[in-house]
């Protein structure tokens, strides 16, 4: 402001007193700042060199834990993502496009969401209060490094825990960085299992010697019949294009039957038929199908004699009392003396006996046929049972090791694309807990033992005192019994320090002591391989710089490593992009037609060529003596002596129907809470990721799904607000009344963000407000779909 002419003098005469002018001028940043338009703190003189750039298209991807790994092409203009498109390559059955679904298409909205986490924050209220204050990166990282050092010194490496976190699905994703950092820093308490497949991955090897029991999906066109049993790729993806292969199979002549308590999108959009079933009773249907096959002599006795043990009394391991074969159990010659007739199963499953008989005959007489299991069933009270039960039916029909068949069980496929990874480093700690019991290890780690699934040591020297939660929501939202979990976490004398990397303020981020803003996929160089099923290698190139003060998980952990005195060990002098380059060296070696690193970066996708479908257990089928399975007998173990020796409640040595706790009228809780509650996978989310999207929320709001029969009995109408509750908690949410799920069942799609109101009622609709922390008997896995509740109009 000039002092000459009209400037300050005029003002002071006419409007403001001089003193007031001077003060306001100071408040506005000083006269110098005013003259330059707030240049003291806000706008700057423009850098003339910063010319606008033309639009470019950057190949990257969408990698979350839906199992899809899909192509994203980001249009970038002047440092800004203006539009997202997906795979534009030619589309063919041999090499189908890796097209992103509606979740993937919201990546730009995710990137530019106004409520993204922007700066490092420290907790200023009570833990879990969600009150944070912006701090500098230096203060944040100094604090984390100091706490890691203090807790490591005070309690030892078994007190340090890197929580399960799969919000990202790329090779350089957050949790891998935290694992490497903690391993190099002196170790951490290990976990085994995951939240998806604990029971399935535990149980399948008891029958088949491996959990890689799946063929490649391009073999489904060879099937004549596909039983998609609790299998719903149309909604939950399970590998990019899985529903496409299902449709191709149908086009090639396969009949597709969906068995599911919900009329899923797979049932309504793809299947020829939907057989609704009461949740948690799949083994009763399997057992009755076995009964019909045996009764009508439709089973493949020759296959069973050659390739299995434990089907009948003639093929049992030595020393097992008679009556313990699967046939004895099914035909009523076992301990319970009950024949597993279709009538018996009808009362349990709600499926009419005639339908059961027809299904058994069709599955036994249509060759080849594939019983493909989804994994929702394995997240139930006795989740080990349906996994091995499905294998029994596949074996009884001789559908294992052939084109168009399917061994059932976990069903992961051995065939994939060869690529290296980001090395996690060696963890010097031997001790490992089942992942679902980490809250127990915070609460009473030193009291845990083999009875809680602790392995590697007899006892833990410490409870968990430090948690690194890097890009995942299992700290709160996706773990069971949120009210109990958060009660444990709120007590800062138990777990003394929690650091979280996140993109948004989800339930887990709320419980951070230090909360760090992480870069998104569009903001970093990375790669992703398809998960479980599929063979592609997707290149992620940085489209834009990380917004605000967000940083990549790698850079954050590298800076922490520096502070912890292990900087060089952590980075080995490499940037993130250099680690990506190194990982792909494996691919370069493995395939002659790999175009080379630079060309692959430019094209974005590499898919190796395969001459024919991969068939799991083909070598075993062709020559069982030369290629035995990795089971104690070398055969398919319908009866498992190893499980027999475990001798655990709810864990029979032959798969069978076990009535669930919180399963039905036999549980006293049923009187008060007569509805079964599941948390299905919702198309709008990948678990809890994408719940922040207003687009997807509008398309598919979080709701409770309920059958009209149950709604009417409670005076509830479509759209009403309802209370969903049990002894563990209460959710308040709008209801969708629909016949697309069986009576007696309500569905609160998993992944909604927990938002307690003042009374502790969750108005965000996380199903885990209602779920139990009780594990499955074999794997100590999560049984989050076995829940009893009551619903009332709010």
């Amino acid at each position, binding site marked *: *402001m*000039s002092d000459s*002419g*009209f*400037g*300050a003098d*005029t*003002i002071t005469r*006419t*409007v*403001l*007193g001089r*003193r*007031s*002018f001077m*003060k*306001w*001028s*100071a*408040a*506005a*940043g000083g006269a110098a700042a*005013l003259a330059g*338009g*707030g*240049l003291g*703190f*806000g*706008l*700057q*003189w*423009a*850098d003339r060199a*910063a010319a606008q750039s033309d639009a470019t298209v950057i190949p990257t991807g969408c990698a979350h834990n839906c199992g899809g790994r899909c192509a994203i092409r980001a249009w970038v203009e*002047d*440092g*800004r*993502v203006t539009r997202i498109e997906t795979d534009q390559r030619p589309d063919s059955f041999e090499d189908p496009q890796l097209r992103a679904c509606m979740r993937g298409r919201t990546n*730009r*909205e995710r990137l*530019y*969401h*106004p*409520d993204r*986490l*922007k*700066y490092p924050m420290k907790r*200023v209220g009570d833990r879990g209060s*969600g009150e*944070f*204050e*912006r701090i500098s990166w230096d203060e944040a990282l100094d604090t984390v490094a100091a706490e890691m050092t203090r807790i490591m010194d005070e309690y030892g490496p078994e007190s340090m825990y890197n929580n399960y976190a799969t919000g990202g699905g790329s090779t350089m994703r957050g949790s891998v960085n935290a694992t490497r950092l903690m391993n190099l820093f002196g170790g951490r308490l290990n976990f085994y299992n995951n939240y998806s497949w604990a029971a399935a991955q535990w149980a399948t090897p008891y029958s088949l010697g491996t959990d890689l029991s799946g063929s490649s999906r391009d073999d489904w066109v060879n099937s004549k019949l596909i039983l998609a049993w609790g299998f719903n790729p149309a909604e939950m993806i399970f590998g990019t294009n899985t529903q496409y292969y299902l449709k191709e199979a149908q086009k090639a002549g396969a009949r597709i039957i969906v068995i599911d308590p919900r009329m899923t999108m797979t049932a309504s959009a793809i299947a020829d038929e939907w057989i609704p079933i009461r949740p948690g009773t799949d083994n009763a249907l399997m057992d009755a199908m076995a009964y019909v096959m045996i009764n009508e002599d439709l089973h493949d006795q020759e296959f069973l004699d050659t390739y299995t043990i434990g089907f009948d009394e003639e093929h049992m391991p030595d020393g097992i009392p008679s009556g313990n074969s699967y046939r004895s159990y099914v035909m009523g010659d076992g301990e319970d003396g009950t024949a597993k007739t279709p009538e018996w199963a009808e009362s349990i499953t709600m499926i009419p006996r005639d339908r059961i008989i027809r299904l058994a005959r069709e599955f036994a007489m249509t060759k080849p046929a594939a019983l493909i299991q989804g994994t929702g069933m394995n997240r139930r009270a006795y989740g080990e049972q349906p996994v091995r039960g499905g294998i029994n039916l596949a074996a009884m029909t001789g559908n294992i090791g052939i084109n168009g068949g399917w061994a059932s069980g976990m069903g992961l496929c051995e065939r994939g694309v060869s690529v290296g990874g980001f090395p996690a480093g060696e963890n010097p700690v031997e001790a490992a807990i089942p992942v679902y019991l980490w809250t127990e290890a915070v609460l009473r780690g030193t009291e845990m033992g083999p009875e809680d699934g602790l392995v590697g040591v007899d006892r833990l020297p410490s409870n968990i005192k430090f948690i690194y939660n890097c890009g995942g929501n299992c700290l709160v939202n996706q773990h069971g019994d949120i009210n109990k979990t958060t009660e444990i976490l709120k007590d800062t004398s138990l777990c003394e320090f929690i650091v979280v990397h996140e993109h*948004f*303020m989800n339930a887990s*981020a709320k419980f951070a002591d230090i909360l760090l803003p992480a870069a998104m996929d569009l903001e970093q160089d990375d790669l992703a391989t398809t998960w479980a099923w599929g063979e592609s290698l997707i290149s992620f190139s940085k489209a834009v*710089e*990380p*917004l*605000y*003060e967000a940083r990549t998980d790698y850079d954050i952990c590298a800076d922490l490593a520096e502070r912890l005195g292990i900087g060089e060990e952590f980075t080995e002098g490499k940037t993130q992009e250099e680690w990506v380059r190194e990982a792909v060296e494996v691919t370069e070696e493995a395939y002659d037609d790999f175009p080379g690193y630079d060309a692959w970066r430019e094209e974005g996708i590499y898919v190796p060529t395969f001459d024919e479908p991969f068939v799991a257990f083909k070598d075993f089928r062709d020559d069982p003596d030369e290629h035995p399975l990795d089971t104690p007998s070398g055969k398919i173990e319908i009866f498992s002596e190893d499980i027999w020796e475990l001798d655990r409640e709810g864990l029979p040595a032959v798969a069978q129907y076990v009535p669930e706790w919180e399963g039905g009228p036999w549980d006293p809780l049923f009187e008060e809470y007569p509805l079964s509650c599941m948390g299905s996978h919702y198309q709008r989310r990948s678990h809890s990721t994408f719940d922040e999207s207003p687009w997807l929320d509008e398309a598919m709001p979080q709701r409770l799904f309920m059958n009209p029969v149950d709604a009417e009995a409670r005076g509830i109408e479509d759209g009403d607000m309802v209370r969903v509750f049990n002894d563990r908690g209460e959710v308040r949410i709008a209801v969708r009344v629909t016949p697309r799920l069986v009576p007696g069942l309500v569905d609160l799609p998993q992944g909604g963000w927990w938002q307690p109101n003042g009374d502790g009622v969750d108005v965000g609709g996380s199903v885990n407000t209602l779920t139990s922390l009780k594990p499955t008997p074999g794997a100590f896995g999560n049984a989050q779909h076995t829940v009893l509740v009551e619903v009332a109009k709010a």
Partner: protein
Amino acid sequence: MSTTEPVTTRLSPERWATDLVAHSLAYGFLSRAIYQEPDGGLLRTLADDDVAATWPVEGDDTDLAVGRELLHGFLREWSEELLPELRRDYTRLFIGPGIKAAPWESVYLSRDNVVFEQQTVAVRDFYHRFGLQAPRLRREPDDHLGLELAFMVHLCSLALEALESEDQRRFQWLLGAQRTFLRVHLLRWAPRCLGLVIQHAATDYYRGVGHLALGTLRRTAETLGIDPAEHAPSVR
């Protein structure tokens, strides 16, 4: 709006100078209050000597009156101990998580309600025409309310310079630029954002800032002969 009389001749040069200085003071303070986390120095400056008893921009306007009263009342009680509360309020309003009054234009005006949209680029271009750019370019959006208000300070200063050098053409052109910036940008979204500030602020300080910003924008519009209501997006 159209008028036969150039807006620049409606007021005397002295009166224009007064107005421009007053507005640049007001926008300078508002810009700083909204763009930066609260700092003790600024608050002390304001609290000392009862600065807030006056507001540089005069006028018979409810928002100005209410805002002045709220700010004045808050500053009378000011002590450093209130700073953490003020910081929490700022964080909730303008940073998040759980952001209550997202301070970026494109969040209000773009189809998808996100940051870094066409509006952001248009504002960037506007700044650039006057030789300015946002700090942390491409990392943080250019159309932050605090930056747009800072840009108003710059436009006021340039106009004042033109006035002092008696360059009528340039003066008129600069007022035109202010009018365009207000009509195309600030007036189209700032009232909605400031409404959210007033609604969600937990302290009288930010409630006061919200009212003062609303009132000041309205006064600027009036001075420049713009009907603010004309430029607010219609609500169906």
